[in-house]
């Protein structure tokens, strides 16, 4: 369970996050949407300790991130993260990208790590691309390798930061399908995305952020069909 309690964060004078409250239960899929600059990426980065916050509390399975005794590296092993621009290691093959962390962090043998990586590539539908370098993969394929790289650490949670917004339309589906499968298998997910189809299929809750605040929350029907706030209505008009 991830508990976010009254979190506030500043970049210097600028307040990026204001009084964020949210609880994500195991097995849930939460979708975050909102205009550019509203603090969505920053919120995700606070949850796995890549960015510090100044006020409030974030607890992952009861462990506080702001507690100086918390080992953030250990904690991140449990939280996978997928980025908008994939961020694969360009000098390594798809397989090497996936096996690196299990080998170095989990100390898995090379054979075991490879076996698992191949299973994951199978699962995301590109077992034939194991030895390809990122530059020789399409955007959709790269993103699927990136998802496999995160899954290789067997995380309890997965966070996605606009995983399809750098992709051509025909590739969006192949990535979303992988994400939908994951959600249906019971993965706990936190996704920044504006893909309504994805939200309709798997989201348990949708959070709408604006200027660092959670302005509205609801289910798919509640939020996308009947938004309450003016800001959300305006925003939905733009993305539809």
């Amino acid at each position, binding site marked *: 369970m991830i508990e976010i309690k009254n979190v506030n964060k500043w970049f210097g004078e600028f307040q990026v996050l204001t009084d964020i409250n949210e609880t994500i239960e195991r097995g849930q899929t939460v979708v975050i949407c909102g205009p550019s600059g509203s603090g969505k990426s920053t919120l995700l*980065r606070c949850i*796995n300790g*890549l960015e510090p916050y100044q006020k409030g509390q974030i607890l992952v399975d009861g462990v506080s991130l702001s507690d100086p005794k918390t080992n953030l*590296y*250990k904690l*991140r*092993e449990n*939280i*996978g*993260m997928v*980025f*908008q*621009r994939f*961020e*694969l*290691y*360009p*000098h390594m093959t798809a397989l090497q990208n996936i096996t*690196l*962390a299990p080998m*170095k*962090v989990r100390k898995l043998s090379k054979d075991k790590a490879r076996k698992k990586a191949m299973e994951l590539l199978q699962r995301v539908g590109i077992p034939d691309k194991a030895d390809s*370098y*990122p*530059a*020789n993969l399409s955007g959709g394929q790269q993103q699927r390798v*990136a998802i496999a*790289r*995160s899954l*290789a*650490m067997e995380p309890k949670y997965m966070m996605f930061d606009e995983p399809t917004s750098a992709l051509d339309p025909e590739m969006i589906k192949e990535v979303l399908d992988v994400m939908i499968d994951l959600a249906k298998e019971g993965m706990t997910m936190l996704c920044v995305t504006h893909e309504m189809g994805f939200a309709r299929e798997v989201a348990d809750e949708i959070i709408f952020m604006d200027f660092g605040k959670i302005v509205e929350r609801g289910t798919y029907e509640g939020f996308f069909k009947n938004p309450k706030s003016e800001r959300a209505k305006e925003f939905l008009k733009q993305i539809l």
Partner: protein
Amino acid sequence: MGFAYDFDWGVLWRQPYGIWLLQGLWLTIKIGFVAWIVAFFLGVLVGTLRVTPWRWLRFISTAYTEIFRNIPFLVQLFFWYYAGPMIFGESLGRQINQIVGLNFYVAILALGLYTASRVAEHMRAGFASISRDQYQAVLSTGMTQYQMYRYVIIPYALRIIIPPLTTEFLTIFKNSSVAMTIGVAELTFMSYRIDAETFHGLEATTGAMVIYLILGLTVVRAMGIIEARFKIPGMIGRE
């Protein structure tokens, strides 16, 4: 049109002069290679320490880089040769001064330390060209700062900076000629020596120039092979 000067290209292969040039070349190669090994590893280390989270290490490595790259190499060479042994105190300093071939070792050390500061700067540029999200992607898999640099960021940055490193490697051979000022009998020194003995400095210097050129082109070729071997697919060295 005639020259008053009496050309004698024979000095380039007449003995002992031809051998002198080859001996000089051999010393130039040795200085350049060993100094490069020092410069490369020290430079990667210093360049990496400049971006670590620990303030003290950052301060020391930044100070190192700025001191060594802002003082002319010749001055550094003189400093290490004349003042260097005294750092170790009077009696030890005197012993160091008696080491046979001290100037050769000093040349390697000075050139290595100086070039390391330049390699460190290139490293920093390499790190800076890697996006913040790329670093965060590595950390998000649970890797520590050390593992992140060791397994992803340093290998990645090194591949990015192969072209400027090639230039540094070339420059180290050229800078090694400065070692003649402390009496190291490398290639430039030998061409002067031939001039002193035969008054055919023009031929000797031309010979040295050609040898430097061939050496440089060989290095460029070798680095080209390394670059092709390690290039990041889709980034540098496109066919």
